[in-house]
C-alpha cells in the first residue's frame, strides 16, 4: 500500500512499529493511529457489542474509537500513543482477527438490535450457553501482560490561577493573566499546547507563537497532563490531573476551564463505518501530521468548520464534495460512497463528519458551574468576565459556546485580563 504521507513535511526520525507482529513504518512521536492509517491499515478494532469494524474517529483523545492493546497494555488510545521504535500494537475484541472477526455475526444475528433487558429472559435451556456467548462477545480488551511495576507518584499543589486546557482560549487567558502578574499553571492533555489550532490552516504556527508568548510571560505549562476529575469532597475540592510522572492533586484561588469542544458524528445509517471521521480529525491528519486523508473527501453536515477545511484539502489537490446531510454510508469495509436523502450518491474515499461540536463541560460542571440547556448545546454559562455560577470557577472559549479559534482567543484575553 502506498504511503499516504506528504513528502515535504518535518517529522521525527523513522522507526518501525508492529501490528500483530507485522512491521509498520512510523515516525517517532507520530501517534500509532496516524502511522497505521498512513500505511493503509483500515480497521483498528471491533466494537463492543456487534463487533462492527472501527477506526479512529476524533483523533483527539476523546472518542475511544481507536483503543488498542499497545505494548501489552489494553485500551490505550491509538491517537495518543506516540510511535517509538518497537512499539507493539494489537487489535482488541476480535476472533480470530480484527480484519476477519467471526463475532461480527452478532451484527447480522441482531439486525434490530439487542435489548439486554429481555435478551436472556425466558430462555431456561439456552441461558447457560448464551451467558458464555455474551461473555465472549462483550468486554473491552484483556488484562495487561503484567501488573504495574510501581505506583505513580502523587503530588499536591495550590495555585493562584489554574487554567485547564491549552487551546487558543486557555493559552490566551494564561498569557493575559501572567502579564498582569498572576502566577499561572496551565495543564493541557496534548503533547504540545495548541488544542484545536492544530486542525486549522496556519494553526500550528499560531500554536507555537502562543506557546512561546506563554513561556515568556512566565506561565508554567504542563503538557500530556490530563485533567481527570473534580473531587468536591476532598480538602475543600481537588482537581486531579494525570501527568507523565504521576497524579497531581490541584486546587487554586481561581480555576479557568478552557476545555474546548468534542467532535460529534453525523446521524445516519452506518455512520460508524471506517472512513467516517470527525472533520477536525481530517484537518489534524493533513495539517498536524502531514498525511493525505484521502483523494476524494465528502464533507457531510452543516458545521462551518467545513468552510476552512475544504480549501485546505483542495490546496493539496484533494477533491472535496460538500454534502448537507447523508442518509446512509456505503462501502464493504471502508467508506466508498455516501447516499443522500433523495437516493443520489456521492463517491468518496473518506467522509468528514461536519456536525457542530459539543462543549467539553464535564469538569466545569463537576466543579459547580451551570450549563445552558440543549438549545445552547450544553455550553457553560458565563458573564463578561468569564465567571460561572460558582465563585472562583471561570470558563472561556469554545466551552462557553462553540465559535472559531480567533473568537476563542479573544475571549481568553478578555477573561485573563480580569483575573
Amino acid at each position, binding site marked *: 500500500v502506498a504511503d499516504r504521507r506528504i513528502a515535504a513535511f518535518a517529522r521525527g526520525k523513522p522507526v518501525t512499529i508492529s501490528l500483530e507482529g507485522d512491521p509498520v513504518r512510523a515516525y517517532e512521536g507520530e501517534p500509532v493511529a496516524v502511522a497505521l492509517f498512513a500505511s493503509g491499515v483500515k480497521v483498528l478494532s471491533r466494537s*463492543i*457489542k*456487534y463487533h*462492527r469494524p*472501527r477506526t479512529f474517529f*476524533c483523533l483527539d*483523545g*476523546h*472518542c*475511544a474509537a481507536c483503543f488498542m492493546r499497545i505494548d501489552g497494555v489494553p*485500551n490505550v488510545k491509538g491517537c495518543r500513543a506516540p510511535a517509538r521504535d518497537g512499539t507493539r500494537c494489537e487489535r482488541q475484541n476480535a476472533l480470530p482477527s480484527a480484519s476477519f472477526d467471526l463475532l461480527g455475526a452478532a*451484527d447480522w444475528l441482531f439486525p*434490530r*438490535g439487542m*435489548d*439486554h433487558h429481555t435478551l436472556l429472559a425466558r430462555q431456561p435451556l439456552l441461558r447457560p450457553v448464551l451467558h458464555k456467548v455474551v461473555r465472549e462477545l462483550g468486554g473491552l480488551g484483556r488484562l495487561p501482560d503484567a501488573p*504495574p511495576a510501581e*505506583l*505513580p*507518584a*502523587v*503530588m*499536591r*499543589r*495550590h495555585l493562584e490561577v489554574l487554567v485547564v486546557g491549552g487551546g487558543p482560549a486557555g493559552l490566551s487567558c494564561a498569557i493575559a493573566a501572567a502579564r498582569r502578574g498572576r502566577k499561572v499553571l496551565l495543564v493541557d492533555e496534548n503533547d504540545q499546547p495548541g488544542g484545536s489550532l492544530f486542525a486549522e490552516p496556519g494553526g500550528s504556527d499560531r500554536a507555537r507563537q502562543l506557546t512561546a508568548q506563554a513561556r515568556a510571560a512566565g506561565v508554567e505549562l504542563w503538557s500530556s497532563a490530563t*485533567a*481527570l*476529575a*473534580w*473531587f*468536591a*469532597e476532598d480538602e*475543600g*475540592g481537588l482537581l*486531579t490531573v*494525570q501527568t507523565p510522572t*504521576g*497524579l497531581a492533586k490541584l*486546587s487554586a484561588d481561581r480555576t479557568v476551564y478552557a476545555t474546548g469542544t*468534542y*467532535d*460529534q*458524528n453525523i*446521524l445516519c*445509517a*452506518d*455512520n*460508524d463505518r471506517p472512513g467516517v471521521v470527525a472533520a477536525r480529525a481530517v484537518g489534524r491528519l493533513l495539517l498536524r501530521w502531514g498525511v493525505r486523508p484521502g483523494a476524494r473527501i465528502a464533507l457531510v453536515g452543516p458545521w462551518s468548520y467545513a468552510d476552512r477545511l475544504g480549501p485546505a484539502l483542495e490546496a493539496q489537490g484533494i477533491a472535496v464534495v460538500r454534502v448537507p446531510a447523508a442518509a446512509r454510508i456505503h462501502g464493504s469495509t471502508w467508506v466508498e460512497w455516501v447516499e443522500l436523502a433523495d437516493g443520489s450518491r456521492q463517491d468518496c474515499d473518506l467522509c468528514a463528519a461536519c456536525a457542530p461540536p*459539543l462543549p*467539553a*463541560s*464535564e469538569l466545569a*460542571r*463537576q466543579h*459547580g458551574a451551570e450549563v445552558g*440547556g*440543549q*438549545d445552547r*448545546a*450544553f455550553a457553560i454559562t458565563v458573564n463578561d468576565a468569564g465567571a460561572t455560577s460558582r465563585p472562583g470557577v471561570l470558563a472561556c472559549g469554545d466551552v462557553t459556546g462553540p465559535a472559531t479559534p480567533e473568537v476563542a482567543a479573544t475571549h481568553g484575553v478578555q477573561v485573563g485580563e480580569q483575573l
Partner: protein
Amino acid sequence: VPKVIVCRCEDVTLRDIEHAIAKGNRDIEEIKRYTGFGTGPCQGKECVLAVANILAERTGESVPPFVSRPPIQPTALKYFARGHETRQDPPPPAPAAGKAR
C-alpha cells in the same frame, strides 16, 4: 446490516433510543440507564447531545445533559491506588471551612 450508531462506545443505536422512549422513559438519565448510552469509555462525549436532541424533538422540552461523574477520561486504577501524597510543592493552605458542597 444498517444501523444508526448513536453511542459508539456501547453500540447503542437510534432504534434503541426510540425503543427506550416508547417504553415510557422521558428523562435523559432514564434513557442512559435503560440503554447504557454514555456509559462507555468516552462517558458521553460523542452521544449526549445527539440523545438530548432526539429527546427534545419527541418531548418538545429543552433537555439538560446527564450528570458527569469522575473521572472523565479512562484512567488506570494505579493512579488512584496510592492515595496519599509523595510530594508537596508548595504546601497547600488549610482546607476551607465546611464542605465544598
